[in-house]
C-alpha cells in the first residue's frame, strides 16, 4: 500500500493555510479598508502604531492587504505551491 502520510500532511497544511487566509474577509465598518494602506498614519501615537505593525509584519504596507481580492489571489498562490509540493511527494 502506498504511503499516504506525506500527501495527507501536505493537504492538511494546505487546507489550514486556505482556511486562515480568509481571516481578513470579515466585513468591516470602514468602507475604505481595502485602501487603508494608502492612508498616511495620523493622530497621536500613530508612529508607534506604524512601528508596531512594521515590526510584526514588514510587508503590511503592500497593496491588497486585507481585501477579498487579495485573499483570492493569495489562495491562488497557495494552490500553485500545493500542486508543486504534491508533485515533489508523489513524483
Amino acid at each position, binding site marked *: 500500500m502506498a504511503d499516504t502520510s506525506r500527501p495527507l500532511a501536505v493537504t492538511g497544511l494546505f487546507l489550514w*493555510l486556505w482556511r486562515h*487566509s480568509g481571516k*481578513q474577509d470579515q466585513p468591516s465598518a470602514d468602507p475604505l479598508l481595502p485602501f487603508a494602506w494608502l492612508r498616511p498614519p495620523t493622530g497621536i501615537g500613530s508612529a508607534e502604531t506604524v512601528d508596531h505593525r512594521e515590526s510584526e*509584519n*514588514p*510587508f*503590511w504596507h*503592500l*497593496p*491588497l*492587504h*486585507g*481585501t477579498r481580492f*487579495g*485573499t*483570492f*489571489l*493569495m*489562495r*491562488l*498562490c*497557495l*494552490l*500553485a*505551491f500545493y*500542486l*508543486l509540493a504534491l*508533485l515533489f511527494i*508523489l*513524483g
Partner: protein
Amino acid sequence: MIPPWVSALAWRTSFKLVGWWPTALSGLAIALGLAFAADSPELLPRVVEVIVPLAFGAQAAFVLAPDSEPPLELLLASPRPVPWALWERLLVLAGLQGSVALVASVVTLSMAPDYGLAQVIARWLAPSAFLGGVAILAAQVTRQGVFGALLATLLWASMLFGGDALLSRWPSLWPLHLFLQPGATAPALYAANRASLLAAGLGMVALAPRLLADEERALDISRAAERR
C-alpha cells in the same frame, strides 16, 4: 585541436529542437512592453522581469518531456547518456532567452539610468531559474511537457498578482515571492529572496536529469507493469 567531448555534443540539433521563434516572440513582447512603458520609468524594469520568466518556464517544460520525445528509446540506447541531451537543450534555451533578457536589460538601463544593472538582472534571473526548474521537474515527474508549462504558468500568474497579498498575510513566506520589488523590503531581505529562488530553481533543474537517467522510469516500465 578540439577535445573529444566537444565533438560528442550536439549543439546544432539542440538549437534546432529548441527553436528560435519562441525567443523571437519573447523579444518582440519585451520590445512592445518597453515601448508602452517608455513614459513610466517605474514600470520599465518590470517588463523584462514579467516576460522572460514566463517565456523561459513555458519553453523549458518542453525541452525533453519523455512522452513527447518519440526517439526516447534510441536516445536511451545510444552510448551518450540521455541527461546530456536535456542539459544541452536547457543550456541552448538559457543562452537564447538569457541573451534576449540581457539585451533588454541594457535597453532598460539606457531608458531609465536610475536602476543598476545588477538589480535589473536579479529581477528576471531568479524567477526565471525558479519557474524553469518547476517546469522541467514537473515535465519529468508527469512525463508530459504540458503539465510543466501549466504549473509554471499558474505559479507565474498567481505570484505576479497575488505575491504581495501572500506576504502581507504570511511575511515569513518571503523566500517564495517571485516578483518581490526591491523597494518593498530591506536590501538584505531582497538579496536573500533572490538567492533562495535561484538556489531552489537550480536545485530543481539539477534533479530533473537524474529522474530522466532512470531508464525504467523514462520508459514508464514500472507503471505499465502495475497496470497489467
